């Protein structure tokens, strides 16, 4: 028998035995779909952990690497016959990998960067202001202002120039709707999600708290996110969020949909845009926020929305979640390409989503496949369709 400290510490030691070997998880796994061998799929990996516990296998470098060939996309969890929280198990297994000093180099880099720079790509707090270029007027008095609504961008949207338009669109939407909102600006730090992906479960709460204490000081009641993983991380790992339910955490589309229902947003006719919505794994399977983006698109005249297959809680991962984009970029890209193939069998010319990693993955896959389609965040679609301000705009919150 081999003792797996982390698996036991987090109460996961029964799970490999509870698995019924039914194979449901493996058949939905994006990594298995590409690599086609059981040892890369969830059922296979669970069997290997069991054999390690039984002393028949070894927790070596090869298996440690396989643990990281996973998108933490929650698909296996959502179909598991015996109710195993597989994603939780994979996170704990990653902690075990870290404990044994077998972390893949990109995961080590992420841990170091989050710890020393407060973000995932070794930038720094000053860089969190770069996205504001060109909309200074809209944001200048917003940073660390007391307000009921806060917009939390997350590392990708703040720091990757390709995604700056997402943040700008959200700010413009809030301004259009007359929302009194605040931004954390350079005080925003990583939400903590990448720590769980890289096997450091211990420090997530502290990372979340750095943001949350500030948010609380500003009197915020609703936090709006551009990245669903930030919400998931705080809901699962922040002690204060779990205890104090007074702060509401919303995805961009949940918030925008609310603004539409409150008649704060008005749209002008669009020139026949056919869109399809890619449900990000975490929004669909964890936050269950599948209807809001569709309701939003239904409200924009001239936007025709078609469904991809699979969609909603059965959505296929974009391939970039869970650090797979840095641990195995080629595999990650293949998964994204497969998802884009789902789009090509629909009449859609635009794929809309609401997760920064999905956008980055699809942009890359568009390049590698040569598919011609526009990839957009839902905030970009909404902002682009707003009617001129004199006709719309809402009252102050």
């Amino acid at each position, binding site marked *: 028998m081999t003792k797996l400290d982390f698996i036991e510490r987090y109460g996961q030691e029964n799970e490999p035995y509870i698995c019924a070997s*039914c*194979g449901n998880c493996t058949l939905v796994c994006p990594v298995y779909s590409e690599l*086609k*061998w*059981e*040892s890369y799929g969830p059922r296979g990996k669970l069997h290997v952990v069991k054999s390690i516990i039984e002393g028949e296998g070894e927790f070596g470098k090869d298996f440690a690497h396989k643990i990281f060939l996973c998108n933490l996309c929650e698909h296996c969890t959502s179909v598991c*016959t*015996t109710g195993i929280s597989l994603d939780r198990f994979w996170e704990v297994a990653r902690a075990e990998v870290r404990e044994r000093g077998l972390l893949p180099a990109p995961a080590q880099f992420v841990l170091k960067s989050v710890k020393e720079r407060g973000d995932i790509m070794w930038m720094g707090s000053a860089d969190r202001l770069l996205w504001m270029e060109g909309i200074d007027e809209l944001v200048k008095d917003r940073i660390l202002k007391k307000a009921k609504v806060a917009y939390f961008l997350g590392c990708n949207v703040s720091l990757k120039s390709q995604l700056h338009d997402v943040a700008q669109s959200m700010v413009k939407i809030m301004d259009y709707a007359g929302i009194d909102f605040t931004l954390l600006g350079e005080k925003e730090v990583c939400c903590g999600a990448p720590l769980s992906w890289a096997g450091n479960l211990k420090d997530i709460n502290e990372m979340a708290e750095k943001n949350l204490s500030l948010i609380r000081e500003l009197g915020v009641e609703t936090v709006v996110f551009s990245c669903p993983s930030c919400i998931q991380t705080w809901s699962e790992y922040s002690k204060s969020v779990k205890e104090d339910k007074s702060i509401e955490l919303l995805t961009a589309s949940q918030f925008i949909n609310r603004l539409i229902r409150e008649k704060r947003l008005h749209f002008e006719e669009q020139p026949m845009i056919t869109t399809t919505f890619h449900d990000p794994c975490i929004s669909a399977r964890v936050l269950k926020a599948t209807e809001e983006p569709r309701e939003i698109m239904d409200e924009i005249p001239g936007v025709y929305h078609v469904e991809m297959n699979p969609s909603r809680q059965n959505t296929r991962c974009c391939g970039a979640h869970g650090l797979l984009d840095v641990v195995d970029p080629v595999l990650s890209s293949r998964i994204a390409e497969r998802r884009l193939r789902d789009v090509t069998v629909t009449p859609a010319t635009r794929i809309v989503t609401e997760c920064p990693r999905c956008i980055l993955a699809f942009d890359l896959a568009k390049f590698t496949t040569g598919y011609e389609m526009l990839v957009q965040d839902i905030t970009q679609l909404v902002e682009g369709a707003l009617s001129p301000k004199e006709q719309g705009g809402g009252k102050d919150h």
Partner: protein
Amino acid sequence: MIYSKDVTSLPDLAHQIVSPRFDVVTQPVDVLSLQNLIIYAIENGIPIVPRGNGTSGWGGAIPTRGGLCISLSAMSGILYFNEFESAVTVETGITWRDLLAFLERLGFTLPVYPSSATAATVGGFVASGGLGIGSTRNGDILKQVIGIEAILPNGKIVRLGRLLLDSKTDPLREKVEEGNSWLSEKLSDAGLGSPEQETKLFTGTYGTLGIITKVTLKTIPNLQLIPFSCSFDRMTDLVRAADRILSEVKPYYMRFLADNYTSKLRALSEYENESGKYILTGALLDTIYQNEDNIEIIKTVTNEEKGYVLDDKRSWFYWSERLYPLRIKRHGPSLVPAEMLAPMNMLPEILEKTKAELRNSKVAIEGTLSNDGTTSFMVWILDDERKKVSFTIGWYRSFQIASLAERFGGLPYAVGLWNGRHARKFYGNDSYKNLKVMKKKLDPSNIMNPLKVFGGRVTIGRESMLLGFLLGFIVTMIGGWLLPGLLNLDWLNQFLSLSLVQFLYFPNLWLLGLAGGLIAVMIIRFMRLSQALAIGIPILRILSKLLRR
């Protein structure tokens, strides 16, 4: 290692009679590469085991002598569909889920599919046979098979029944003609019909006679589906209601969940009317008008038989749960399945008897009702394989249920590896004899899924060999020492009192023991699976009784 398991947790002891893993796992992508693999295996005498997705629990897909695992999951195309012929042809590695999704988009569905549809392959279920969703109206899966393409253990490609394909794009035509004419000869030698009439050689025989590569299945229109569910306090009431519903309504699907099953379903904890009760649930698949009438009949029958009709929401819940019969495994965490095919009217009695036999075990029981008055009776025995000794000893219980089935006029539900002893009863005497003849003709070197269905010599593990040797040694030593005194034969006494014999008494006794040990080892080496089980199971049973005391 990962490909060497199915859903049953096996005790380490089982690996004393079957090998714990395959030597190689392969994933052919088309029929010709599969044919090459088989030819390679024949030339090198390597055992082959076909594998769908390993969701069965009777050992059919696990290794017995190492060798080659042939995973068919990369052969998963849909090759032909014709709504006027109500048929679809697929490669056998496709999952039932994907096939259903394809058909449902066209307004069709399948007359029968397994409750493991989300992961099981078409080939796996067709090769195992059995009842599934839809069997309440349409019988077992084997009745839904129109045609089959298979590769024989000698590498020949054959087609049986009526395999529907677009004949213009059939690259295998010549090979099939050659294979079929060879097979026709062998079939007529054995006094059997033409390939067209003999699909049953490959359906329900667990891949022992060949690997199924394509199947043509019946399809049906996907009319209005209405699930229903009712709860009962007593199994006898449930069975009476089920009997009446079967004859008056002919539902598409009907399943029962016993009290020990519903009490373990976490999702039912808040439903007093369901948790710990007997649930009868299923679905109608008909026109709106027929469904309306039939639902009324179900309600009336349930009320008359002292049952309680559950609302639509609960019925949809049970309908979606049809694909998750193993939810209860968390209570184990390990599972030893024991299943039988029982006459429906005997269900209450069998249930009571099973509960009594397994009173010291955690069990959950459920089953599917067929259209021929039989029911699958699934006993999920929940145990903990980490408790090595008690788990190993408790393994006999699964075999005990198979024997119980016989007492009540039932049969084991499946054969696979572990129920090979009951194969003759399972297939019927004549069919079994024919299968055996054909096995010899098609697979003379016995490389195709060895030990399954037909049994055979097992490769006993080193530990058992050593134990056998020690037992043989000790028994003959004691025998050699005590027997002369007990027999009290003059000539023997005289012989033993010779001074040379006296001088070498102990070395002789040792030699005798050694010979006894070696004989025991020889006996074990030539032991067949059925004999190993016939010796092992009673020992486990006795040990279990002793341990309980």
